[in-house]
């Protein structure tokens, strides 16, 4: 009976959803959706891996159309449905928390998670029901190829992606409206001051003044460093959303024209130019958004965990500005295998500027570790160990990507499992998710009003299973890539079975980790508590801690 009681009401009945503010509820709603989509993406990954070992296994049943439709939605569900939602949820809460200002609109925040959820579901349906499978790369003119794909499936899929991007634009509007609102501590700040701080210019000017022996440009920057990282990363999120939305509109125009009996010429759009446009935008997710958001999250976590100022804060601010230039100029590393791409673009953008990401990410890793190091001894809390695991993830994944952004290596690694395993999966599953789990544990008492965690042992088990599973799976995939295994290919004769079996074992650890994490959360909050999160809030409070401060004043 105790089990049923905990299952229904949470641990020691400590979670009271009716006590949550509108801001807390909207944050938790997106977090719940994010972890559900994470499970779906993980399951899809395992099913695809199973099919690479035995193509006859369900649900693929030797059908490449089904296999590739799963491969198409796997990153949509994993990146947008899960990662975007989790990042957006955290920042939707953190921006008001850190700036001590109310969120611009909780209604818009609710619309954001709803649009992304509906959009992800629509894309999934478009692929699952109609087998629409142009992959997330949408290489022109494949998405408009109605000889291979269903018209209606394509329209549903693309509308789904467009909804995700509209939701993303909603998040961006909310972030900037909150940051630029001249209320509270920013009541006397000008837009110019906030912009200078948001782009890290004040950090750079402080550094220059220090070198010239002058007084700092500002002793108290208008925005705290994590907000600067969110501000800066959101620029890339915005541009990325515009590019993906643009690509979606282009595909929709062709599909709708086809539905209307008009046969538009696909060769009117140059395939290589389209690739450049698409990768310029998409790479902003990977190299701009992820690396910058992550750097900001590391800085925030390091300062919260240690309770001390960030080591070399001005350098960190200036580095975020440098990353602005780097992230916009690196897309050609995706086009090193395209012989029509000008060689100078390959050399400058694809190799040299891309190599700077080693510098910017290495700097973030150094600053975070030094901040922790100077504050030792520290207690090995959940926040700290997940943060350290996140550092390991990027420590492994960033060089794996930089190695391939080289004309020699790319010739033998492009489109292999190396890049998707050793680089992308380790970066996302270990680097990004471990950092986000650390954020989850930091925010847990704040967004749940101190709900008790059901089991620390389960939290530890989740940590080790996820860490070992993530690194092991990425490494096995990477090794398969070195053995020639392609990333966008369906091997129907078990050519790489041994690698895939090992990857599946580690993948199972990841899946099990997710089940344990989910179980721990359900038992902490209770089924009633989880339902309560989705019920309307009893108040419209869109800030954290301000009301108490105002009451005291």
């Amino acid at each position, binding site marked *: 009976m105790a089990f049923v009681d905990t299952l229904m009401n949470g641990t020691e009945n400590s979670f009271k959803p009716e006590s949550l503010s509108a801001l807390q509820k909207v944050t938790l709603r997106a977090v719940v959706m994010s972890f559900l989509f994470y499970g779906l993406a993980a399951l899809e990954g395992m099913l695809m891996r199973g099919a690479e070992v035995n193509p006859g296994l369900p649900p693929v049943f030797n059908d490449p*159309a089904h296999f590739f439709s799963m491969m198409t939605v796997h990153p949509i569900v994993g990146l947008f449905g899960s990662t975007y939602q989790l990042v957006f949820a955290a920042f939707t809460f953190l921006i008001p928390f850190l700036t001590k200002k109310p969120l611009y609109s909780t209604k818009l925040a609710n619309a954001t998670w709803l649009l992304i959820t509906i959009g992800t579901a629509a894309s999934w349906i478009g692929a699952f029901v109609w087998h629409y499978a142009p992959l997330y790369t949408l290489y022109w003119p494949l998405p408009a190829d109605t000889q291979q794909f269903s018209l209606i499936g394509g329209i549903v899929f693309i509308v789904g992606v467009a909804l995700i991007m509209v939701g993303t634009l909603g998040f961006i509007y909310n972030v900037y409206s909150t940051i630029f609102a001249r209320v509270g501590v920013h009541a006397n700040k000008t837009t110019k001051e906030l912009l200078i701080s948001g782009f890290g210019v004040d950090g750079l000017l402080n550094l220059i003044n220090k070198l010239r022996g002058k007084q700092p440009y500002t002793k108290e920057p208008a925005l705290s460093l994590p907000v600067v990282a969110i501000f800066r990363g959101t620029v890339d999120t915005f541009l990325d959303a515009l590019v993906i939305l643009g690509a979606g509109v282009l595909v929709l125009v062709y599909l709708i024209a086809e539905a209307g009996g008009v046969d538009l010429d696909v060769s009117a759009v140059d*395939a290589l130019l389209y690739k450049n446009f698409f990768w310029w935008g998409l790479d902003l997710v990977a190299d701009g958004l992820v690396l910058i958001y992550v750097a900001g999250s590391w800085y925030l976590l390091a300062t919260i965990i240690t309770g001390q100022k960030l080591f070399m804060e001005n350098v960190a601010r200036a580095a975020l500005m440098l990353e602005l230039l780097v992230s916009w100029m690196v897309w050609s590393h995706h086009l090193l295998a395209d012989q029509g791409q000008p060689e100078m673009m390959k050399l400058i953008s694809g190799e040299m500027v891309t190599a700077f990401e080693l*510098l910017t990410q290495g700097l973030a890793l150094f600053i975070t570790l030094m901040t922790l190091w100077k504050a030792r*001894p520290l207690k*090995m809390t959940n926040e700290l160990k997940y943060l350290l695991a996140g550092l*390991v993830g990027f420590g492994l994944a960033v060089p794996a990507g930089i190695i391939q952004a080289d*004309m020699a290596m790319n010739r*033998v690694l492009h489109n292999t499992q190396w890049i998707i395993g050793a680089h992308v999966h380790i970066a996302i599953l270990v680097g990004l998710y471990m950092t986000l789990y650390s954020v989850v544990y930091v925010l847990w008492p704040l967004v749940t009003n101190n709900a008790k965690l059901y089991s620390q042992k389960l939290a530890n088990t989740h940590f080790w299973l996820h860490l070992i599973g993530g690194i092991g799976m990425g490494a096995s995939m990477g090794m398969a890539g070195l053995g020639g295994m*392609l990333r966008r290919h369906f091997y129907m004769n078990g050519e790489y079975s041994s690698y895939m079996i090992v990857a599946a074992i580690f993948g199972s650890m990841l899946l099990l980790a997710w089940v344990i994490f989910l179980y721990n959360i359900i038992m902490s909050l209770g089924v009633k508590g989880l339902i309560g999160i989705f019920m309307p809030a009893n108040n419209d409070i869109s800030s954290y801690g301000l009301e108490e401060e105002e009451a005291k004043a």
Partner: protein
Amino acid sequence: MTFETSLELLSFHWVAYTVYSLLIISIIAWFAYNLTRETKAKSIVRIPFYGYISFLVAAGVGHHMFTYNAVPWVEQDITRHNLTADRTFDISIKNQVFTLPKEKMTAKYGEQVMFNVHSEDLVYGFGLFRDDNTMVMQMQVNPGTKNDILWTFKECGNFHMLSTEYSGPAGAKIRIDNAFSVTGCDKGDV
């Protein structure tokens, strides 16, 4: 140090990256252990900040300089339009079907071979693979642009061809066995 085949480069890469991975995991684990100890650990080595930054820059740039000098196909790729190929093969693709030259594509050990691949509809890839499925080399094949690759074969054998880029579900079945062969490694081999 020079790598004659992609297999040699990938083997070197396998070892180098594994060593690096173990090193970075060990460093963070060492940090984690010492972060929680009451007695403060003394640093094993003191790395000045600018030394660390210089190392990152050197690693990022030096990596390319190393491969440019140690991997022959980089320079050959950049200057391929000024080089004369020993053999040239024209290949076209349409509706997920490769059309190869009528005569079997062959070359002798050490010859420079140019592959011109033309797509008439979608984005494809062109890759040659060994019997054990390891990759010799690959490139993307875009419609509307020239897709050519010059390669010096320093290994013999029969190589199969795959499209290394996804072009729709039917693309999974694009595979041409014994598409290209290289002879001349043995003394008696003509």
